[in-house]
Each structure stands twice: as C-alpha cells, then as structure tokens.
C-alpha cells in the first residue's frame, strides 16, 4: 500500500525534504522513516548548547503538529531493512512493506569506530540525542573526560565539558588539531582557546592501548604517557550510511553516488545529505561528500524539487561553522583547492583567510572570531566564490575595502 514519496532517514536532510515536498504543493502520500525515537531534530546543538543545558532537549525541525498539519507520516523508530528496486518497495525491519513512487536516501553518516581492542562501556561516540544524553551525565566538575580526535565534534564537546567544569584532555594523532579542511593559522587560534580555558590538547599522540573496565578508561599513548578518564568520547570522523543502498545495487563512491541533480542511476531513487557524494559545479564537477548541516538542509529541499521533476543541479558553495567557547569559525568553499592565502583582520580578535587558486580565483574563505564577527564577510566571500571572482590580493587584505563593493564590481 501507500506509494508516493518515501524518505529513508528522518534527520536534517530527510526532515527538510518532507517539509519541502508539501511546500512545493505535492499532494500525494509522504512517508518519512527514521530509526531514532525522536522527531526530526538538529544535530549541531548536541555538542554545543544542548550539551551544557541543565535539561537537554531535542531541537525539533518539525513538531508533531506540523507533521500532522502537512500530512507527513513519520514512522519511528522504524528501520528500513532493504529496498526492492524492481518492485519499488521498501521493507521495514518488522517485515512490513511500503510501496514508493520516488525514494530518497537521507541516511546520514555514523561515527567512524576506533579500530582497537579494549573499548567498553566508557568509550562512546556522539551522533544522536541519546548519545548526547549519555555523555552529559558524565560532565561535571572534576570528572575526567578524554576526547579521542581533535576534529570539530571532539573539540566542541571538549569546550562544553570545560564549561561544565570537567577535566578535559584531547588526544590527536596528527601534528595539529583540525588537520582536515581548516588552515593551520585558524587551528592555532582554536588550540590556544582550549588551553586558555584549561583543556589539555595533546597532538602527535598516537594511542597504543585502551583499557576500559566499565567504570573508567585508561588510555596509554605511544610515548608511554597514561591518561585516566571516567569517559572517553571518540570523534575520529564519520562514514556515510551506504549499506542499504549498496545492498540495493546502487553505486557507492565515498557515499551513495548521485549526479548533480541528486539522482542515483535508478530514475526513481535520489540521495542527499551526509550519505551521498555528488559533483560540485563550483569546482569543475569534482565529486565530494560533505558532512555539513546547511548542505543537508539545502540538499533535502533540492531533492524534494527534483523528486517532483524540477531537474535543478546543486549549485551551492559548501559552508560550515563550528562554535567553541566564545569563538565561532565559519568556512565557505573548499580550501584544499587553493595554493595561497591572504589574511584580512576584522577588528582585533577576528580574521579571515581568503584562499586563492593558482589562477587567482577565490575558492574558499575561512574565518574565526568571537560570536558572529566574521559572518558577514564569510557570507559575501561565499557569493564571490560562487561567481568565480578573481580579486586583487591587496583589496582582499584591506579591511577598508568592503566585500560588498567587490561583489557589485
């Protein structure tokens, strides 16, 4: 029975897609299937505000009433077990079946597991609200938290743990934190902020052994140092949830492979958000997979349009932010496309690095500062990147030259 539009995964992307289908006037059945027990919710607060709140709550993308109003059927917690493309059916874990006319994979990603023996109850990951609640219970003055991995989620969690008074040690195998996608100059500011707030950051620190007895964890580093913790939170990246798509015979290439319209090779099936890889027009069609909130949001809405036959390509410039202590970092574009950078200071405590390709094109901009100090200029930089603008380095470096003027020019 059923039919119509079926969405697997009720996260940021799936939730936005369901709402967008209705906003676009689609009148047939919309079914959103998610394996979590909650309403579709925003994940970014989990490591930030929700983690330090007295009573953490889900920040829902759509409330029960919204979903009812829009006649969106939200099945939860329900896991999709398989997809039968020939019969156009999804099979649920309880054995029931659901027909689809168009299907969207919005299955997201899952924390990469630390491939080591010795992990137990006190070694955890952070992806879901339930994960966040479980971690929150351990954050209090003097509790000892080890964060394995100096990436965004680990560092945000470290900052929240410090705010709640816990002792925090971040263990990073690379020579510096935020190796992936963040320029060294900005990572250094983040590193200094953590130290100023009393978190220990250990870089170039491989882990030789973990011993988790269910009450506490002991982490032995390659250089022999030993770190004792009440809880170890592991944040070493994420992997796209592709198993279901792969079993259905869809192509996987660092994510469910889709074209610029978010189509898989099956004309009835789309994929969007953290789970998919897609060609990014602003960088000559280079295939990328993003783990970013705005991307999930925009691709959810775009997938809805294209499920209804609009055939519009992804055109957005990647955009990402992270909050730690009073600092906000924002990054537009992909800085690994660049071979030089130009710095613009914004007041005393904030700056932006503009990243230029060999031919002078602006390909990315990374900024850091208190609160939203860099936001406006990062947003303008994003528009300049979308235009493929080539700008005089001196103009980019000078705070007196307004980016809005460069955009108009």
């Amino acid at each position: 029975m059923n039919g119509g539009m079926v969405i697997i995964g009720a996260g940021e992307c799936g939730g936005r897609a369901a709402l967008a289908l209705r906003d676009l006037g689609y009148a047939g059945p919309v079914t959103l299937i998610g394996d979590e027990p909650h309403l579709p919710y925003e994940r970014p607060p989990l490591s930030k505000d929700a983690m330090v709140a007295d009573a953490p709550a889900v920040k829902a993308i759509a409330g029960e009433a919204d979903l009812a109003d829009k006649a969106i059927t939200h099945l939860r917690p329900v896991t999709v077990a398989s997809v039968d493309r020939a019969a156009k059916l999804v099979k649920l874990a309880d054995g029931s079946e659901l027909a689809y006319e168009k299907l969207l994979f919005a299955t997201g990603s899952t924390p990469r597991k630390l491939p080591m023996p010795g992990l137990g109850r006190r070694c955890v990951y952070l992806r879901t609200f339930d994960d966040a609640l479980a971690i929150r219970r351990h954050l209090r003055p003097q509790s000892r938290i080890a964060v394995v991995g100096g990436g965004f989620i680990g560092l945000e969690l470290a900052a929240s743990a410090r705010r709640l008074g816990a002792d925090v040690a971040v263990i990073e195998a690379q020579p510096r934190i935020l190796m992936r996608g963040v320029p060294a100059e900005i990572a250094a500011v983040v590193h200094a902020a953590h130290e100023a707030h009393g978190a220990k950051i250990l870089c170039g620190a491989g882990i030789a052994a973990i011993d988790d007895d269910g009450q506490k964890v002991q982490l032995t580093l390659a250089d022999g140092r030993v770190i004792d913790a009440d809880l170890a939170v592991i944040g070493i990246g994420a992997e796209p949830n592709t198993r279901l798509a792969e079993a259905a015979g869809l192509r996987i290439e660092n994510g469910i492979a889709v074209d610029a319209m978010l189509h898989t090779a099956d004309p009835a099936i789309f994929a969007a958000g953290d789970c998919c890889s897609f060609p990014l027009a602003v960088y000559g069609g280079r295939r990328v997979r993003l783990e970013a909130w705005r991307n999930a949001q925009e691709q959810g809405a775009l997938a809805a349009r294209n499920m209804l036959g609009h055939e519009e390509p992804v055109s957005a410039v990647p955009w990402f932010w992270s909050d730690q202590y009073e600092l906000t970092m924002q990054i537009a574009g992909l800085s690994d496309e660049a071979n030089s950078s130009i710095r613009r200071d914004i007041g005393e405590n904030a700056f932006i690095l503009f990243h230029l390709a060999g031919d002078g094109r602006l390909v990315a901009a990374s900024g850091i500062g208190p609160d939203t100090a860099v936001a406006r200029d990062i947003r303008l930089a994003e528009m300049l990147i979308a235009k493929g603008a080539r700008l005089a380095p001196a103009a980019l470096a000078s705070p007196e030259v307004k980016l809005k003027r460069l955009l108009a020019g």
Partner: protein
Amino acid sequence: MSEWIEACGADDVDEEDVIRFDHAGHTFAIYRSPDDEYFATDGLCTHEQVHLSGGLVIDDIIECPKHNGRFNYKTGEAKGAPVCVNLKTYPVKVEGGKVLIQVG
C-alpha cells in the same frame, strides 16, 4: 501604551545595512533599505537568539549571521529553513535626521 523612541541618526545606518539598538532591556535591529527607507524589527533571530545586526542585508532580506536563516525585514516574514517563526516588526519614521521607532 505605545511611544515613539529615538533609535539612531538617519546617517548611522548605511544604505542596505542594519544596526543594533537596545532600549529598556530589549534589543532591536534598524534597517535602511537600498531604496533608502528605514525599518525596524526585533533584534534577535527567532532560531537561536543571535543578534541580527551582525548579518547581511540584501534587498528586502536580512540574513542571520549564525546559520543564514532569512527574514524579510519589511514584513518580518521568515523565509525558510532554519527559521520558521516570523520576526516582530515596528513602525518607523524619520524626523529631523533621526530614526524613531514605535514600541509598546
């Protein structure tokens, strides 16, 4: 009870820009549109209570600096994810080079 209060000088806001104005424990955002009209809304984004004055004004739209939520600052209308609750707007007049807003 409503009263007109002086928010700023007309020249304090650039064209197609926004500034923050605080009054009696409340924060407002004062806008000057590209066609040189003035508008006022609540100063905080309805998504996560961030000051909109740090955001970008383009035509009729204010974009929140935090997660790029958008509002029409003339009507207060939320223009899509992640914002879904409209912004409150306030009447504005310009007199003697001053921008006045009506509150309460």
